[in-house]
């Protein structure tokens, strides 16, 4: 793997985002708006289902937010016909996926710097303080999974005509196990009834999911972008 090529691809994504602000600002606005809707829809405060219901809302909102960003993934390559330039380059095509997954993960983390405090403010401020270390681990692991799966699916959808339809249809079913794991792991950081072992198991589950989709992404992207 060419580290220089990888770094250049990630740098390119970050530069384009810094200049265009196409993705992160829209995602941050979307997730906060979703929390506001949930809050008013539920009549304010902690939802009736308790911590688990609240973290469920958090991760559903984050997955839909991620999908908003994924719709722009590879958009420049598609709209400006840049795919041919990348595909003709003498690099492993999986490197294109890896770089995009990394930048997507960084965008998600940037959005969550806004989303998580907003979530706490809206839904959990009266509850116990979370275990911040485990919370960060759970969020980062879930983000890696979303980015790995999402970048693969976005590459596949970018080749199709009905991209806006294809992306959620492909992404959401595969994201269900990730949401379940992320909800359980995040709940474990907040709920005092949850044992340490349970939380460790859930983090392990997220790490396993990440491993599977990183391997899938690396192995399949070459075929996904084949015309």
């Amino acid at each position, binding site marked *: 793997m*060419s580290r*220089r*090529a990888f*770094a*250049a*691809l990630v*740098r*390119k994504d970050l*530069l*384009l985002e810094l*200049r*265009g602000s196409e993705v992160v600002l829209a995602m941050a606005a979307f997730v906060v708006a979703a929390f506001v809707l949930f809050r008013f829809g539920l009549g304010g405060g902690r939802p009736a289902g308790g911590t688990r219901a609240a973290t469920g809302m958090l991760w559903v909102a984050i997955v839909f937010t991620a999908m908003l960003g994924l719709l722009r993934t590879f958009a*420049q390559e598609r709209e*400006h*016909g*840049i*795919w*041919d*330039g*990348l*595909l*003709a*380059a*003498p*690099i*492993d095509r999986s490197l294109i996926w890896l770089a995009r997954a990394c930048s997507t993960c960084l965008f998600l983390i940037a959005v969550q710097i806004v989303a998580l405090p907003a979530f706490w403010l809206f839904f959990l401020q009266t509850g116990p303080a979370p275990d911040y270390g485990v919370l960060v681990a759970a969020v980062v692991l879930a983000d890696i999974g979303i980015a790995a799966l999402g970048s693969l699916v976005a590459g596949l959808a970018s080749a199709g005509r009905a991209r806006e339809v294809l992306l959620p249809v492909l992404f959401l079913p595969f994201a269900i196990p990730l949401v379940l794991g992320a909800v359980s792991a995040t709940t474990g950081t907040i709920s005092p009834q949850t044992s340490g072992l349970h939380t460790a198991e859930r983090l392990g589950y997220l790490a396993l999911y990440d491993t599977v989709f990183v391997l899938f992404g690396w192995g399949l992207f070459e075929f996904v972008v*084949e*015309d």
Partner: protein
Amino acid sequence: MPSPSVVDPASDPEAVVCAGLVRRFGERAALDGVDLRLGRGDFVLVTGPNGAGKTTLLRVLATVLRPTAGLVAVSGHELPRAAPAARPLIGYVAHGPLTYPGLTAHENLDLYAALYGVPADRVSPALERVGLRGRGRDPVAGFSRGMAQRLALARALLHRPALLLLDEPTAGLDSDGRALLREVLAEPGRTVIVSTHEPAWFEGLATAEVRLVSGRVAA
């Protein structure tokens, strides 16, 4: 203009060999049994009506598209199996500039320098070569069609390819740009394949012409 020799499928390390090349998009064959053999240093024009398969031929040779059937080899590297070995030898100027509008000209070439593993200090001379030295820090989004085409040429030449593929390279170029293109194409030691609707413009450069009609080499 003479036609390039029709192929003997026994592959040897000539610049380009196509034998019975077929490329289908669904049921439609964009290339339907193309035979070509180009020696090193040949300068070949690919002409023909719209939809004849000119762009598809260049995209297959650029390793962007897989052939559906037949043999294709670039410098003895059979595609798609040996595409990773062939890619560093190929420079490709497509219809579009293949650059990111939100990046500057310099940043775009920096990216491609990294992808092709060539030193970053080649970028500034490459921009100078195509007359864009003063515009290197400007976003490509503000470039005219001709400037974008010059940048595309700089991008394709950055890694000093042995085979240069150009798809309608004169489109959008002003007279200075055309003079520059002619100067670049006249440099010896490269095999060049140009898809064009203006074969007369390449007189004095081209050594052969291939006319494609409905995905086949016309007799």
